[in-house]
């Protein structure tokens, strides 16, 4: 019973220490900058297509369904734009991207580090005198922090763009009506909150995956466990963090 309570606490402690050690070696990033660059490409640039695809579909669906729900002559059509644009900036653009990246980026990192752990590659790095946490964990977490906001921008631009396009093609509202509606209720807080969320999710996904991967145990099965847990845990934490950011900043 006590053990069941203690083991999550112990995991949190271990996770905090790992992150502490990663950020303590931040001055060494000068030596490992190449790693940071590689990870920025793998985590960020390589994720652009899938994030854009998801954003395109959510933008289109949101426009069609909002138009359907507001199908009365009493409400001006511009309202569709006033609802779709902030929804994407505040919530959909970043949360859907977060879920997709938990699978794509989180699972990849956990599998990569987990394989390195069980095949003793991490031991080999350490035995050479390299700081394996600075070398492996820090570049991935930093790349997440840097690239997730970029992916968030991609997601918003594509999502709202497809929303406008769908509204026009589907005959719900014109481009200028959409833009007018979107501008009418625009608040700088909306993209700011989305930005904060993207930073948070980027940190959650990469750090949880690094933690799971770095401490993988026992063989192929262990790598499988770490990969699954990294993706699932990240999704759960994204939901919790989404609510927390909203409560704190709204």
């Amino acid at each position: 019973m006590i053990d069941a309570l203690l083991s999550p606490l112990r995991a949190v402690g271990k996770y905090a220490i790992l992150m502490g050690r990663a950020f303590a070696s931040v001055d060494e990033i000068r030596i490992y900058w190449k790693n940071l660059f590689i990870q920025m490409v793998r985590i960020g640039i390589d994720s652009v297509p899938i994030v854009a695809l998801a954003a395109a579909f959510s933008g289109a669906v949101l426009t069609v369904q909002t138009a359907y729900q507001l199908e009365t002559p009493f409400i001006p059509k511009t309202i569709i734009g006033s609802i779709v644009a902030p929804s994407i900036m505040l919530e959909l653009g970043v949360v859907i991207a977060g879920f997709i990246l938990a699978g794509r980026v989180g699972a990849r990192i956990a599998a990569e580090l987990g394989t390195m752990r069980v095949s003793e590659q991490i031991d080999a790095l350490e035995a050479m005198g390299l700081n394996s946490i600075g070398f492996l964990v820090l570049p991935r977490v930093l790349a997440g922090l840097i690239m997730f906001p970029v992916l968030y921008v991609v997601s918003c631009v594509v999502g709202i763009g497809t929303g406008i396009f769908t509204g026009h093609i589907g005959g719900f509202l014109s481009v200028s009506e959409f833009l007018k509606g979107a501008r009418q209720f625009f608040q700088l807080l909306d993209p700011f909150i989305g930005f904060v969320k993207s930073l948070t999710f980027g940190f959650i996904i990469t750090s949880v995956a690094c933690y799971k991967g770095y401490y993988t145990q026992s063989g192929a099965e262990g790598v499988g466990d770490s990969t699954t847990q990294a993706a699932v845990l990240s999704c759960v934490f994204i939901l919790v963090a989404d609510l927390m950011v909203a409560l704190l900043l709204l």
Partner: protein
Amino acid sequence: MIEVENISKSFGALDVLEDVSIEVRDGEKLAIIGRSGSGKSVLMKHFVGLLQPDSGHVYVDGEDLCCAPYEQVRHLRMRFGVLFQGGALFDSKTTFGNIAFPLRYFSSMTEDEIEARVQECLDLVRLSEVGDKNPSELSGGMRKRVALARAIAMEPQYILYDEPTSGLDPETSNTINDLINHLAKELNVTSVVITHDMHSVLEVADRVAFLHGNDLEWVGTVEEIHECTNPHLNSFVKASEYTIDEASATASLSGSSV
């Protein structure tokens, strides 16, 4: 000098090492033998602080690996070359990239010098033409030798070899044994060789440590093996198809060449 003082190590309920003490003297070649699963690799990982003992101490050149701050441990580790049992090659890098890796991070060599050094190391392990292959494209024995090339690339003061000849044909094994002897002699490398292969032991070792039942049951020179009365060691030696006569003959041969 590496001094291991009364270390104990267990994983959960499994006691692997109990109160083990051994010293590795400067310039010597120490062989660690013992049954599969007896804890040889675990003991080796303590030498570079990859595992922390539950109790006891490990000193490298007088510095305690267990209590030293991480930065100092890293500096001590740079004196070592480690050949892991499974090779532990970086599978995201080519053969060349693997061997060049420590040189890139820890030496001030230029890219040309690195290339020359990598080629030299590959030649030493008799693998001249695999530089651009990925580890997954190599055979098991080739991977082992690439890992060996990586371990010696920095010309370390200590080299730990975890089963350097396992999975190799007799001829290549002899090449590796000669290489271990060569490095020890020419560069005064202190070597720890973990092996099952009694032939290797007789070829390379100055001293032998026999790990059995959580402890080093017997430590002595190669020449003393055939006089030893430890029943476990005797049956270990016998099982490796070496009669005592053959063993002593080879021992005296290698003894004269050292």
